């Protein structure tokens, strides 16, 4: 059986894509866990959270029956704290730092606890934040992903009128389009976005792409400041023969279609190879299995010691029955009738450490071949180098160069998130947006108000009032 959709029954799809980190079922269960928390001072969990959520405080607020206070404690640090409770690799962040680990005890289930008040806040539409009266100052944000939304929320709270330009049809960025469906559902992403926007003062112009529908120079004239948070693009090319064959697909595009098209309509191969060992590679591999692929093999040129995904993620792939080839580098793809049929790999061995401290894989000269009908590329995403270049921004390999808090050398232009770091966690993007918002506020206050001007393109209605 080659690449095809509708492999499973609707019940099987539902079962396979069920929430992998189910929430606490009862308040009692929440309280048992919340009361385990030691309420550490200068807590390692908080210090290990890129957004610095005051974890002991929000947990103590749960234990003391102040769920609104708890939700606010989370959201003030991380407006996507609900989504992050589902997608964060907590075992290497907050939960990995929990002091219980040092007692050989199970760490506090921080993510599940965090989900409790944030879910309630979103479901019950608690108005935890109020927007200051409009200052008349306007900021444009490119990209309605975690960095853009986080920045927008902070700015709007301070009375800034924010317009977000988003090239897709939905907001949320990779949270909406790029994460395994069993971690966070599209419905949740929509609710979370709606909750963020319920603050007011934030307008999203969908289907507006920088470099196509709008130009940075125009935005600079139109707005008091611009925040660039357009993320990264598709997977890095493998640059091996046969990459153009049918059946060789991009991991993000694959995940995108799972999230936007509905499970039954997503085509998947019978023998799937996934290249890479990051979170996206795992998300692609496990979901290929869950869509009904018979055999899924992860191919990675280094070893478990160097892999970017967490042990826990790897465990999910293993439990899903994915095979793993360590120390294997794709060398060539061959096909029949234009469709991929085989992946040849070079066996590798680890050499001396490189600049990053990771040992460099070196070819051994030995090869092996896998029969495949689908190859998913997940070896990191490519920055939008051309867009960055043409916008006149300083960059390194397409990643925008910034100073502290997202300041760029172009006055009034700020940047953060994946377009700067090349692709990290949602929580990193949220923090970048938050820090840039503070820098933007400071910048705007130092600038005289600019005269009002109309929309930059009459075809795009401007709802910013």
């Amino acid at each position, binding site marked *: 059986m080659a690449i095809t959709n509708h492999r499973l029954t609707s019940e099987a799809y539902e079962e396979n894509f069920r929430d992998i980190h189910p929430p606490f079922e009862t308040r009692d269960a929440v309280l048992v866990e919340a*009361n385990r928390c030691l*309420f*550490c*001072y*200068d807590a*390692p969990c908080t210090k290990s959270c890129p957004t610095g959520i005051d974890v002991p405080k929000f947990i103590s607020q749960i234990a003391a029956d102040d769920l609104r206070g708890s939700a606010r404690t989370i959201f003030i640090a991380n407006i996507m704290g609900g989504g992050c409770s589902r997608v964060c690799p907590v075992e290497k962040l907050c939960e990995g730092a929990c002091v*219980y680990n040092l*007692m050989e005890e199970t760490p506090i289930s921080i993510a599940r606890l965090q989900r409790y008040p944030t879910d309630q806040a979103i479901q019950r539409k608690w108005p935890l934040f109020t927007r200051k009266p409009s200052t008349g100052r306007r900021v444009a944000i490119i990209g309605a992903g975690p960095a853009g939304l986080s920045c927008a929320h902070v700015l709007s709270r301070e009375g800034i009128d924010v317009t977000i330009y988003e090239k897709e049809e939905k907001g949320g960025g990779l949270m909406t389009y790029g994460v395994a469906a069993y971690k966070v559902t599209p419905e949740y992403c929509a609710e979370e976005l709606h909750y963020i926007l319920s603050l007011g003062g934030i307008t999203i112009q969908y289907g507006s792409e920088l470099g196509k529908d709008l130009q940075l120079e125009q935005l600079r004239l139109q707005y008091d400041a611009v925040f660039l948070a357009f993320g990264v693009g598709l997977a890095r090319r493998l640059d091996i023969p046969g990459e153009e064959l049918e059946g060789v697909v991009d991991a993000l595009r694959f995940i995108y279609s799972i999230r936007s098209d509905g499970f039954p309509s997503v085509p998947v191969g019978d023998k799937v190879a996934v290249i890479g060992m990051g979170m996206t590679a795992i998300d692609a591999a496990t979901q290929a299995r869950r869509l009904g692929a018979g055999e899924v093999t992860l191919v990675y040129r280094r070893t478990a010691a160097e892999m970017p995904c967490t042990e826990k993620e790897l465990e999910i792939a293993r439990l899903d029955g994915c095979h793993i080839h360590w120390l294997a580098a794709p060398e060539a793809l061959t096909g029949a009738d234009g469709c991929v049929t085989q992946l040849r790999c070079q066996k590798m061995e680890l050499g001396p450490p490189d600049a990053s401290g990771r040992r460099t894989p070196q070819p051994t000269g030995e090869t092996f071949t896998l029969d495949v009908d689908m190859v998913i590329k997940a070896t990191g995403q490519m920055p939008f180098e051309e867009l960055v270049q043409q916008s006149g921004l300083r960059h390194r390999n397409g990643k925008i160069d910034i100073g502290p808090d997202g300041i760029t050398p172009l006055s009034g232009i700020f940047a953060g998130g994946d377009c700067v770091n090349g692709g990290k966690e949602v929580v990193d993007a949220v923090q970048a947006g938050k820090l840039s918002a503070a820098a933007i506020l400071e910048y705007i206050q130092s600038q005289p108000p600019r005269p009002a001007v109309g929309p930059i393109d009459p075809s795009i209605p401007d709802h910013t009032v």
Partner: protein
Amino acid sequence: MASLYTNYLGISSPNPFWLASAPPTDKLINVLRAFEAGWGGVVWKTLGSQVKNVSSRYSAVDYHGSRVMGLNNIELISDRPLDLNLKEIKECIRLFPDRAMIVSLMADNDRDSWHDLIRKVEDTGAHGLELNFGCPHGMTERGMGAAVGQDPAIARIVTEWVMEAATIPVITKLTPNVHSVVPTGRAAVEAGSQGLSLINTIQSVTGVDLDTFIPNPNVGGKSTFGGYCGPAVKPIALKMLTTIAQDPVTAKAPVSGIGGITTWKDAAEFMLLGATTVQICTAVMKHGFRIIEGLCEGLSNWMDEKGFQQTTDFIGRSVPTLTHWEDLDLNFHIVARIDPDKCIHCGLCYIACEDASHQSISMDQGHPYNTYTIKEDECVGCNLCKLVCPVDNCITMVEQRKGPDYLNWKEFQQRGLPLNDH
């Protein structure tokens, strides 16, 4: 193996664990099950004046996820017919002759009522009487319970009436709702009461419902002051127990200790401070009679470990070590020490010392783990860090005497030694 056999005023019981006068001891079916489970004795729930009870009756204080750290009740004495109680007491004694059967009494405030009640109870074959001079709620409004115990003169009179009629040992149960239990204890002992038991419950309001604004327990939109018991009251009970053991008059009366006893360790502490038997209620109300197994086994194992053959080997042993503050040695000095191998870097010691003690712990920032070290020169040896540390034996207190000799406050002043400069 150590013997738990107990002789209290000639009343014998196979172990020192008695059930206190309370709902678990108010009827035959409970008491028989308690005896089957292994309890050494019971104090039958107070008999006397006729009463009617309300609904609801209890409320509790929970702490950090743990239920019933303290229990509050507004239940009165037995509301069952006296004759039924007497019949059942007799039957329990017949079925379990080796167990202690004490009956708690609270008659109307006149000599005849007490005499009449005592005669009826003695007819059951009960081994002792416990005078309820402590119930802090409801009955006090009728001049009974704590209303008697709070006034030594009244307590003396009532005890004298009791002693005119009683032929079996009398234990007077003291209320803690006084500035000191000693005056009433003395009055009772001087009037002839052979034993004392303490403490009864402490007047309390456990909380207010934040939706209805009505304190609990809620009885149709109103509440009333109740009596507090359970683990929360143990320290208060131990202190009062000690004052009874240290007073020359009350020290003559053997004590049955009551107040928050939950484990064998609590019981051992009560006994070290003078209790011959202990009475338990809240722990049973929470977990049932089955806890007797752990109580007996734990106490017995500890006695074996310490080389005690019988309970009298250690009853009262800790009493002399509780002394006046002025007799404490000012040259005794300890400092905290953190074991870096055990430390989990929670920072609880640091913030407690920093905000609430003597700023004697230094913090070296790390990511994500800070390192905490004691500044020995600053440490006053208060124990706070050790108390809040979640890891057993991670913080220990190490002796570093300020001088070789014993030095108390009086001597310190006489010698004109300098006070602290910080």
